[in-house]
């Protein structure tokens, strides 16, 4: 009886050890898949993909880019502020949107346009040089929209359980009218005592 009990206990201990999270072997997983780590107090890559996906779907659904004077619409990527305690490059959201919009021909992104004195001066120098060389002056970028945004968080806890809601919001402003042409908010709420692998 004592030997049988000891055998069962040993087998159970071995099974528990093998099943422990610390024994997860390194392996490749699909980026953004539900198999990845879910962090309660941080923005995960899955969240970034979900946010950019939601923004792109909303842009396509509303057709706002088709209302631009230029075809395809010309976009300036403005400031997207990360107002959370999680460190990540906000460009991960906007780069993915740019990739889809530009490669599909829905929009072009103006990467050299600016309103700072240096940009205006550079544009003026370019114009003058082309004029002196007798070259045709190419029209300078004439952006239709600017894309700006903010990422915020609200954190709460109850005992050992933590809850964090991350809100991604982007706004498209019509540069000809100064009015907001499109805006979208994507929320993500996570709840738990600690981070987990998989969902």
């Amino acid at each position, binding site marked *: 009886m004592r030997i049988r009990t000891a055998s069962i206990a040993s087998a159970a201990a071995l099974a528990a050890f093998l099943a422990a999270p610390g024994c997860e072997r390194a392996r490749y997983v699909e980026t953004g898949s*539900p198999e990845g780590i879910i962090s309660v107090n941080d923005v995960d890559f899955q969240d970034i993909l979900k946010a950019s*996906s939601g923004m792109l779907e909303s842009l396509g659904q*509303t057709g706002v880019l088709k209302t631009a004077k230029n075809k395809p619409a010309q976009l300036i990527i403005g400031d997207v502020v990360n107002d959370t305690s999680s460190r990540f490059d906000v460009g991960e959201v906007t780069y*993915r949107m740019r990739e889809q919009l530009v490669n*599909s021909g829905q929009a072009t992104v103006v990467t050299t346009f600016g309103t700072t004195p240096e940009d205006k001066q550079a544009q003026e120098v370019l114009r003058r040089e082309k004029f002196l060389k007798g070259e045709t002056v190419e029209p300078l970028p004439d952006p239709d929209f600017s894309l700006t945004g903010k990422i915020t968080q609200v954190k709460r806890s109850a005992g050992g359980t933590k809850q964090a809601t991350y809100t991604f919001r982007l706004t498209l402003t019509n540069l000809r009218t100064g009015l907001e042409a499109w805006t979208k908010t994507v929320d993500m709420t996570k709840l738990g005592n600690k981070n987990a692998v*998989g969902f």
Partner: protein
Amino acid sequence: MTVPRIAIRSALVVSAGLLLGALAVTVVTGCGTVNTTSTRTGPADSAVEATTKVNNLLQQIFLTAKEVRMNRTKGGPMEVQVDVENNGFSYKTFAYRFDWVDAKGNVIESQTSVWKSTNVPSGGSTVIRSVAPNEEATDFRLQVRRADS
């Protein structure tokens, strides 16, 4: 003849386990259940015949597809909406992913084809949706997976 002590002990352990299990079921089914109703009594105009296929897929993770709707959005691309119901007794968490396919059957690569997770309480429902990346998309492919826990 007296009953051996080990038999009595085993019987007590089994009884305690059954009682705890019954209590757990009561707690699980009593907490977090949702009751759902709707004013709509018939299928939507944009409901498609894919409901049966989608339902067969969701049944594998113990959920039900009530209706699948496809319509063209104001911006031009197609949108699909799937009403998912949880007629079971427990809270269900699952992940889903829509891929869009053009008229020739080629999958359109898109930043919108990502895994998203959601949950449905017992007796509740949710809508999972996707908007196609461009106007060439005509059909969708849906993948679902249940949470491990």
